[in-house]
């Protein structure tokens, strides 16, 4: 585990813990029907966001897609800005104009997420172009789901990124489903997305996306190679979404049969937060009590964020036309 110091391990754990607790709390509150914005929770997929973002520098930039809370939080976005955005308040990270799928925290390097599949793959590639033109060593990262690899814009972007050796990291979270559609209805049998990337002359690696350290190490290798001028890297992170595609529920509780409870349980066994926590303890880096304290810290950030969000002012109708141009 060459590069992984105890410090890094702690940060990785604290990060997945924070993401998990935030999403779980927001999901619980979502049923109150006060967050009026279609929300794609990222529970179960935290290690991808945490592992990759830990490998980045503060001025590297991150883009995301519809399932974006993890990426926003892992790059440093505040729970307060997220919660207020879900509650549609003026204090939301997008001032209540964007909702769950349109987050931003530019000062932390989280540029934007967007709800249309594939958009930010090209956009991140363009930011990488800007960095290259400026001879900067910054890296642009884009997170997306495996279904986005069915959209043409992904291949146009890879071709271009490889052609110009742009400093962009493509992170695919392969959670096996697109809404309710399994891979088998969308990609040919035997598909290896890494093979596709390599055919575009993009360096590619597949990792266990629930293992914070595996993701972090792969991302570190990727970012080093990118900064060395070797061009784009594609990272496929195998993971699983616990909750329903959009909304806070669980598919099996809602009577949906496109996937089984048994499959979910297998993945819950392989929980990224649990894995990271157990590893910390087994390696003697943190005690159970320490973990409990961190959990309490995070919970308190979330409690305050939600409380503040619920009391925050609504955008005023007279400001409807602000920021169009």
């Amino acid at each position: 585990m060459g590069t992984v110091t105890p410090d890094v391990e702690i940060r990785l754990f604290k990060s997945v813990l924070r993401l998990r607790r935030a999403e779980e709390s927001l999901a619980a509150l979502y049923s109150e029907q006060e967050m009026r914005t279609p929300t794609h929770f990222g529970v179960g997929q935290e290690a991808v966001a945490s592992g990759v973002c830990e490998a980045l520098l503060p001025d590297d930039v991150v883009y995301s897609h519809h399932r974006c809370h993890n990426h926003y939080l892992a790059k440093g976005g505040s729970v307060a800005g997220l919660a207020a955005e879900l509650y549609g308040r003026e204090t939301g990270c997008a001032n209540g104009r964007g909702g769950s799928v349109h987050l931003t925290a530019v000062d932390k390097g989280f540029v934007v997420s967007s709800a249309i599949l594939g958009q930010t793959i090209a956009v991140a590639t363009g930011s990488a172009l800007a960095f290259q033109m400026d001879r900067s060593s910054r890296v642009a990262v884009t997170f997306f789901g495996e279904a986005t690899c069915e959209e043409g814009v992904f291949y146009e972007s890879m071709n271009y990124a490889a052609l110009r050796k742009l400093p962009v990291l493509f992170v695919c979270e392969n959670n096996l489903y697109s809404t309710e559609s399994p891979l088998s209805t969308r990609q040919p049998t035997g598909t290896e997305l890494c093979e596709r990337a390599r055919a575009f002359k993009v360096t590619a690696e597949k990792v266990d996306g629930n293992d914070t350290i595996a993701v972090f190490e792969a991302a570190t290798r990727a970012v080093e190679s990118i900064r060395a001028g070797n061009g784009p890297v594609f990272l496929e992170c195998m993971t699983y979404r616990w909750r329903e595609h959009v909304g806070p529920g669980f598919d099996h509780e809602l009577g949906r049969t496109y996937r089984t409870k048994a499959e979910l349980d297998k993945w819950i066994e392989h929980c990224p937060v649990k894995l990271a926590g157990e590893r910390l303890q087994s390696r003697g880096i943190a005690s159970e009590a320490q973990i409990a304290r961190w959990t309490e810290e995070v919970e308190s950030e979330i409690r305050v964020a939600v409380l503040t969000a619920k009391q925050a002012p609504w955008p005023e109708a007279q400001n409807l036309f602000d920021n169009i141009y």
Partner: protein
Amino acid sequence: MRELKYYEALSEGLVQAMERDSSIFVTGIAVDYASGIFGSTVEATRRFGPERVFDSPAMENAMTGICIGAAAMGKRPMMVHPRNDFMFLAFDQLINLAAKWRYMYGGNAGSVPVVVRAVVGKGWGQGATHSQSLQSLLAHFPGLQVVLPALPQDAKGLTIAALQSNAPTVILEHRTLYGISGPVDEAYVPTPIGKARVVQEGTDVTIVATSFMVIEAMRAAEELAKEGVSVELVDLRSIRPLDEETILSSVRKTGRLVVADTSWELCGVVSEIAALAAEKAFHSLKAPVRRIALADCPAPVSMSLEAAFYPKASTIARAVLATLGRTHSHLGDIDLADDFKGPY
């Protein structure tokens, strides 16, 4: 007549058409889910199975081209977009090929009868990229047909008509209409494409409305009747071809026109209808035409802004009164609460 919900009417039209024409198939993201496009493809999936109703990967552009190519070989594909906003990705195939096919090949390559159904979102913070309504763009192009059923009867009838037509046809279905009930013919009867419907006759003002705004206009008309205003309400139904005749004869009768559409004003349907009146019913017009459309900004998410963004029954009613020169009224609170429930 027995009543059906809008989505049931869509479903019935589709199923009846599929029974009669084995060349029809349905594809698009989520069409074969248990939830089948808000219920509208559930029965077709059950009845006709995966050979004729099948899911699509996320590939809007190529899938539209694939439907065109299947249509060129004699199929009648129906492609469904859970949100019409995803269609931007498919505009090249739809506008730059399907719409021009018959004409551009001199009629010698046949037609490509592709039906594109696409759902228009509104409210619940769906935001700027999931709540647009693309009829005016699409209708700009000769070769496409563009229809917006407002009432369940037309949800069924226009589905049937689209699946019978040889021209590529886009059906835009407003999400908020799906749960609304109305009388629907049991028979297999198409609603003629290119014909508007006079929903109610009246003498003082013509309201021309589309899609969900027809529902809002009905409520406005009811309230206005209490104030002694007789509204003639025209449900446009088709944007292309446009039923100039029905619009013009109504305007010639009432001399006053209010137009309400689910999209923006600039180069929108509201402007088209207003222009039509100014060109061809000018001498009958007694007052300025009034256009009612979305506020001229991208759709915001916050509830407090959505309320200001969307025009409502009261917006229409007030415009009608203004066109009659009446500035004061006892207009009740006729707007319904937005009771759409999340997450989607």
